[in-house]
């Protein structure tokens, strides 16, 4: 019964709204998910927009995703027979991977404001600091989509990188995550002085210098006490590092110390981006502006990321009251309104909140 209700609601959405379609839609493999499974069938192909749109209205799957790769024969199988031509670069960011402490209070099914805000900052960092500043991609070639649940998909449609194989893509991921940074090549001794990264260096070298300066400036407790003692020492260290002179404060085994300190930089940026996904050149990714079957939210194309609030801007349904039996749910927000917590309640909720809970299998339609 819930399934039928949701399908009908999703169907109305697809009837009323234009959907987005990826470049060269006929070269993409499509996959669909059911009430139980996010990807239940794959290897489908649509020759054009109308065919895709008709399918969504008629069959209304609970999830729809398409290949980041372009194939000569997207519907052939097994994979080798599709004949891989090229692929977009897609980064998949999920609040779950941030392992924030708030997770304990709300479980991963109900991302809180903090989770959603932190993952948004991660997406902004990825785009601004890495994709644009370092890698030189044009903002015109980058789109950010809300995942429909608790993260973002960052797409790069740049012709120059479409042909890169999985190995080369992994290099990009390692770059973004800080994996494989070679400290020996960052630091070197020159006449017994320890020289190293400068603030205006390109790439990770500059990031490391700036990171440590920030640590010193804020008196971070990860630094040895000596470096936090007084402003004079702090300033000396900061000017030193700005110029690549890492020898300014005498600390025994200092190179080791710096290394340990920086070890954290890589990891901190590290696990945060789903590594397995981006390197996979046959991955399926949610269709932009389609509905997510676990939330009823739209996998919305984000125009203004700084002001984007998924629980407000990615909702698809209205405020008509629906009576539901809720098994349990922590406190959550939709739009400006907070709901719950619930524990075996029967209550009337606006359609948008009711669908959110039903999709999460936390509520049923009340008789």
């Amino acid at each position, binding site marked *: 019964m819930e399934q039928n209700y949701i399908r009908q609601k999703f169907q109305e959405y697809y009837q009323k709204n234009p959907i987005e379609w990826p470049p060269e839609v006929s070269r993409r493999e499509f996959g669909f998910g059911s009430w139980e499974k996010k990807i239940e069938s794959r290897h489908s192909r649509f020759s054009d927009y109308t065919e895709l749109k008709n399918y969504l209205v008629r069959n209304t799957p609970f999830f729809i995703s398409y290949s980041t790769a372009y194939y000569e024969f997207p519907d052939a199988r097994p994979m080798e027979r599709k004949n891989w031509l090229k692929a977009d670069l897609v980064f998949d960011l999920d609040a779950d991977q941030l392992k924030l402490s708030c997770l304990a209070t709300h479980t991963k099914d109900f991302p809180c404001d903090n989770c959603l805000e932190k993952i948004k900052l991660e997406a902004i960092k990825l785009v601004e600091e890495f994709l644009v500043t*370092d890698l030189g991609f044009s903002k015109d070639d980058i789109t950010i989509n809300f995942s429909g649940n608790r993260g973002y998909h960052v797409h790069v449609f740049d012709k120059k990188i479409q042909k890169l194989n999985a190995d080369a893509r992994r290099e990009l991921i390692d770059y973004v995550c800080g994996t494989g940074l070679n400290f020996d090549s960052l630091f070197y001794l020159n006449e017994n002085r320890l020289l190293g990264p400068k603030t205006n260096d390109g790439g990770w070298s500059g990031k490391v210098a700036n990171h440590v300066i920030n640590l010193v400036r804020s008196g971070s407790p990860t630094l040895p006490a000596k470096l936090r003692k007084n402003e004079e020492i702090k300033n000396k260290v900061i000017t030193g590092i700005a110029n690549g002179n890492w020898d300014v404060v005498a600390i025994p085994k200092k190179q080791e110390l710096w290394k340990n300190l920086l070890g954290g930089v890589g990891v901190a940026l590290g696990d945060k981006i789903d590594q397995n996904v981006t390197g996979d050149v046959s991955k399926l990714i949610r269709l932009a502006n389609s509905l997510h079957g676990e939330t009823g939210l739209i996998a919305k194309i984000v125009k203004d990321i700084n002001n984007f609030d998924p629980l407000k801007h990615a909702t698809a349904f209205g405020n008509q009251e629906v009576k539901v039996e809720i098994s349990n749910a922590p406190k959550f927000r939709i739009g400006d309104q907070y709901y719950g917590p619930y524990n075996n309640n029967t209550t009337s909720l606006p359609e948008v909140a009711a669908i959110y809970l039903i999709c999460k299998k936390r509520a049923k339609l009340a008789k």
Partner: protein
Amino acid sequence: MANQFLAHYPFTSEAKNFVAEQKIDLNYDLLEISKARVISALKDGQIPSMDTQVEEALKLEICSYAVSRMLVSLLKSKFYVSRYSIAEAKRASSYLKVDSDENLAKVTREFNIGWNKGSMQVSDYLAYAPRALEYKLINKHLSNGLVSLTRNEFIRVIEEAIRKHIESSLPINEQAIPSQVQALVAEVKKALPQETAKITIQPQKGEYAPCIKKLLEDLKNSENLPHIARWSLAVYLIHKGVDVDSIVNLFKTAPDFNEKVTRYQVEYVKKRGYKMPNCSVIMSYGLCVARCRIKNPLEFK
């Protein structure tokens, strides 16, 4: 002199055109030079450079590349194609190192790769950078899509482009190969070391981790493993108590095998007593093939 450029970089389209316009005379000299070129590439992993200005000698040199490609194709071995391409690429790169910037630019244009004020496009870099720690993108200065490299680092990247270019153009169709060249194949084969029986090693008990098994499998199929993969494999096997000789033998099937260098490297790994990297690191190298739910490949039972 134009011909010297062609002799040094016989894979360029300019050299190709030159050979096409020539009526190649498959005389004794040309056949012998070509044979020597192939044998030395396959046996020693390198092709000696030669420095002549004599027009006739240069011409022979250019044409010998074309004939060598035929010979290698006739050997019908992926391993030899790969080993030959590596040797040709190394030869070209040793010339590039001492050549003019102008000629360097001419060669790189062949691959549509630009080199400007010490930097290149990151997309080109990623397509051709060797898989080694010091060439990892993260260890390079990168800004606005441009990677900064020294001239020699850049040439190393170009060497990889040359290798891929040559390798992907081989083998050539047997039907198109003149009988005089076909007649040489037996001699070339005789000059090459007997194909070493494919070495297999087995753990004394239990099994090797899946990632390690995959690497051993790839080696057997003469895949050209990246440096980081070989290093990981050597570290793993040393921890498993395999002796240096057996490890060196394993690498014999690598297309760029060089016994002296390999032995030195394996012994070095042993001497330094490197720790086996954790699965998370192996994953970041792109070498993990399973999710074994262990922390370190050495824990695999």
